[in-house]
């Protein structure tokens, strides 16, 4: 058999495989639609959330970060409210992707829970105080910790910041569980530490 014939056969076989794969992928995609939109903000319903029993307004915090001028990004989202009921409206108007400042305020004022999407060893090394660990590469590992909350519970999911995608994977999974009030802290854990906000450390993975 000539080399040319072997190459020709190989190319034809390769094209056949590509065609088969395309057919399989097309059928699969038809029945299992996927999207890069992890969170449907239109389903958000923060009115149902029970606010934190401790009413904290920005003016009452002693966090130096809160005393500084708000960033342009914050101003663009909404003015910071003074009472809890306004915090609900403020949160309702937030974009899905938020920064450290908004993540902190959601926890302080609306009892949001934090979900760390990084691997357990990174979580054990340091995480947002009180965060649950749901590692993106194996969400089922600790996903059980997040079952049983009210569907209106606010979750703030974060990973290592920058271009990390773990928080989106976990947000997608939480959305599948029926949670509608989901936010992604795109600044991630490093920014949380840089802001001097409270962190926790554990010896093993799991919620603290």
């Amino acid at each position, binding site marked *: 058999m000539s080399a040319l014939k072997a190459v020709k056969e190989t190319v034809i076989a390769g094209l056949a*495989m590509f065609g088969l794969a395309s057919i399989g*992928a097309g059928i699969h995609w038809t029945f299992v639609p*996927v999207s890069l939109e992890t969170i449907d903000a239109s389903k958000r319903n923060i009115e149902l959330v029970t606010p934190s029993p401790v009413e904290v307004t920005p003016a009452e915090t002693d966090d130096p970060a809160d005393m500084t001028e708000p960033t342009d990004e914050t101003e663009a989202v909404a003015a910071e409210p003074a009472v809890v009921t306004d915090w609900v409206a403020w949160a309702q108007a937030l974009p899905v992707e938020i920064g450290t400042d908004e993540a902190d305020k959601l926890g302080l004022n609306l009892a949001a829970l934090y979900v760390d999407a990084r691997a357990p060893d990174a979580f054990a090394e340091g995480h947002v105080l009180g965060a649950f660990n749901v590692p993106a590469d194996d969400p089922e590992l600790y996903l059980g910790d997040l079952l049983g909350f009210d569907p209106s519970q606010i979750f703030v999911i974060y990973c290592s910041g920058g271009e990390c995608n773990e928080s989106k*994977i976990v947000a997608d999974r939480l959305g599948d569980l029926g949670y509608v009030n989901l936010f992604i802290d795109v600044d991630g854990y490093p920014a949380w530490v840089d802001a001097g906000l409270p962190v926790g450390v554990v010896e093993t993975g799991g919620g603290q």
Partner: protein
Amino acid sequence: MTPLEGTLNTLTLLLRLGLAVVMGFAAYNKLLDPGAFVFSIEGFRILPDHMIPAAAFLLPWLEAVIAVALFLGLGGRAAAAISAVLLLTFIGGFISVLARDLSVDCGCFGKYKLLCTPAVGTEANPDAGRNFIWCKMGENSLFAAAALLVTIWGPGFFSWDTPFGRRKAAAADSDAGVTYPRDDAGAV
């Protein structure tokens, strides 16, 4: 068939089956959760958003077809060639990620791993993410080398294409009056 050819046919058989298992495992885990795989692809920041869902389905299906082809030795050389191209493309993606200092979880085997444990840089180990990428490049290089060997030498023993070894040997036997039914049937 010389002893050397026999050894090479055995070696390529083992490499072919090994690649089939790796490809099949990768495909299975991606196909289980394409919704998560889209974010793994997005993490590379290479493809435009509108192409990512298509890639999230096409890639694992291609891996699945390749796995079956490699296992059966049906178009084994072509399957190995596509594997090599895929793996070299992945290596290119990892080089790009390193160059841009991104943190990715490639989602190569879903929640499982072979040689490399997914990691991101932490305060205690800031290079963990980069080390993971280097490890993946090494892992893929091994698989790519195996795929290239199968592409060059052929699928080896017990393949649908050449049941008793390399097609060249089969053709030589054919010239000598020995025929193999599946070759004669014009299998790809």
